[in-house]
């Protein structure tokens, strides 16, 4: 990075006029969303500090971000810069791009649904209780096997209820896309034996492994080891991201659809045998 001059910290007389340095600083800050954490980079740390100290600089950063189609979710020493894409922004990552190798037609919807489910499962396993998401000190852990197991369990519960209700839930031959996601997930093998010993990408563990690796590339998770198909821990970036963006929007969508189950403050999941002081559940 080039040496940058000290920006002008005194608010300008006209708040809409920004100095050349401030423009440069703002650009630099936004580009840093995928750089190492501030603690390791003094310049980064400096930018973050300035963002905290000067309203004018903060406003500038946010409006530049907005122009790009981004939202500034957080800027802090702990999280670094966390940016989210706004709706329809070019920076928005879509499942179409995420799972390119998928077939077209009616299977497309099914594949996207499964990949989407995998990401929701990772987020839910990373922060199983509502307060885990709210607690800045919480470090979540998620493994491929655990995520797969818990999702299958939820799907099986639905299957049992469906059988008990004696519904015939088999999809119609001419409308397979109406099949429910839980049935599709249960049908997928969890793992298979390939000739070269690798995990087939269409298996549920393959889908989850892809999700976890992707999130690690994004700087949201860090791989801990290879047990249970791969254990990852969360970063504060991921927590901010999930908390501020995904949860709110998706939650609002579901509220609109009227399909939200009412749960109490303790949530729908229980974590057994873990001391909060240790910070992370064993998987």
């Amino acid at each position, binding site marked *: 990075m080039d040496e940058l001059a000290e920006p002008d910290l005194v608010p300008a007389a006209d708040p809409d006029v920004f100095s050349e340095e401030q423009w440069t600083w703002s650009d630099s800050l936004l580009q840093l969303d995928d750089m190492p954490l501030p603690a390791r980079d003094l310049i980064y740390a400096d930018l973050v500090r300035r963002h905290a100290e000067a309203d004018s600089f903060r406003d500038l950063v946010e409006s530049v971000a907005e122009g790009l189609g981004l939202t500034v979710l957080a800027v802090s020493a702990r999280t670094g810069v966390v940016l989210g894409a706004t709706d329809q922004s070019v920076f928005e990552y879509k499942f179409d791009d995420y799972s390119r190798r998928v077939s077209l037609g009616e299977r497309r919807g099914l594949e996207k649904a499964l990949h989407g489910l995998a990401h929701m499962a990772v987020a839910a396993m990373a922060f199983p209780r509502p307060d885990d998401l709210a607690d800045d000190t919480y470090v979540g852990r998620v493994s491929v096997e655990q995520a797969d197991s818990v999702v299958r*369990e939820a799907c099986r519960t639905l299957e049992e209820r469906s059988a008990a209700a004696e519904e015939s839930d088999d999809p119609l031959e001419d409308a397979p896309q109406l099949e429910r996601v839980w049935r599709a997930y249960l049908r997928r093998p969890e793992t298979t034996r390939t000739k070269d010993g690798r995990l087939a990408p269409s298996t549920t563990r393959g889908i989850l492994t892809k999700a976890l690796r992707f999130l690690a590339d994004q700087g949201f998770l860090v791989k801990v080891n290879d047990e249970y198909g791969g254990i990852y821990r969360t970063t504060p970036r991921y927590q901010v991201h999930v908390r501020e963006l995904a949860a709110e929007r998706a939650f609002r969508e579901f509220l609109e659809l009227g399909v939200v189950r009412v749960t109490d403050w303790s949530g729908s999941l229980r974590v057994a045998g873990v001391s*909060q002081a240790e910070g992370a559940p064993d998987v």
Partner: protein
Amino acid sequence: MTPDEGVGWQGKALRDEGLARRLKALACTAPLHDLDTRKVRLDWCEASVYQMAEIALQVIDQVTIAMDFDRGADHDDVVKRVLPFIVAQAPDRDNDEYAKVAQWVLDNLINVGNAERGFRSVYGTFGESGAYERQIFDFKLIVERVSPEGELYLRASDEAINVLVGALDTDVESAQIAAEVKLANLVKRGRLSDAQLTAQQARYRTVQYAETLRRKLDATKWDVRSVDREREVPDLIDEALTHIEERYRYENAILVNITQAREDATDPVHKLRAAELVQIVTECMRRHTQLQARLQEAGTTFRAEQDRQQFSGQVRRATVDLFGHLLAPALPAGCRCDPPRACLLLGGRRVGRAAVASAVKPG
């Protein structure tokens, strides 16, 4: 009544859940028969001499017997155990060919060529309106699973066991009871050759029952679990333990009778039959004992963990229950629906210099 109304009325009267079940039972045997249709196209051997459906039945049998609460069958083991049966069908071929045939049959029962490793068939029923509707029935026969140590093993599905038993899809618990009542009756009447099939059925049903329990308890090994499941598990374990105790007592009574029959038999064939029955019933009892031990263990662990339940303390700020509000509602949705904004969880693309440089600056 107009012609349409007439059809509708007839349609409603004809709606028959039993019919749907029979059609499904039929569909489950199709992949086995299919093997005999396709064998002529194999280019690596002259396969018409082999009875592939019979070999398939043997394969499913081997997998089922090898299944217990913790494990399943090892792939190579199954191939090995089925070999003698294949050899008997065509004694003049070479060992490589026998192994390949076994592997081919097994791979096809798993259905490795299909991404979902399952089979799909269509069956017709009469819908609510009375009109004839075709529905999709998906099922699996042999399933690959992975052990905690990362090794692959095989299990037989409910549908596969139903093929073995030669019966319809029924409630497993009552099917198990029925098989054992029948067995007791046949033994008492000295009908030992008839009893053999029934004893095997009872064994298969025992395996199937253990499998359904194992599935239900699978997720309890993780320390994160849903509240619903937490409430259900203790009852599930208690019910299962009661059922198992009853089965064990019943089997014990049958065993006493068969052992007596074996002692009293003078005819060697009769004696042999009785000995086989003793073996099968003893195995059922062994499985039940194992199941009981596992359940008691699971129950104890579960209760201990409930006591150590960790709540995260004060709610710091209002936030979302990701499992209950995000994941759970997505499951019953149709596959056509876009995962509701789940793409947000992917994060954004990297911003990078070029993007920033090209941004339109405000002001």
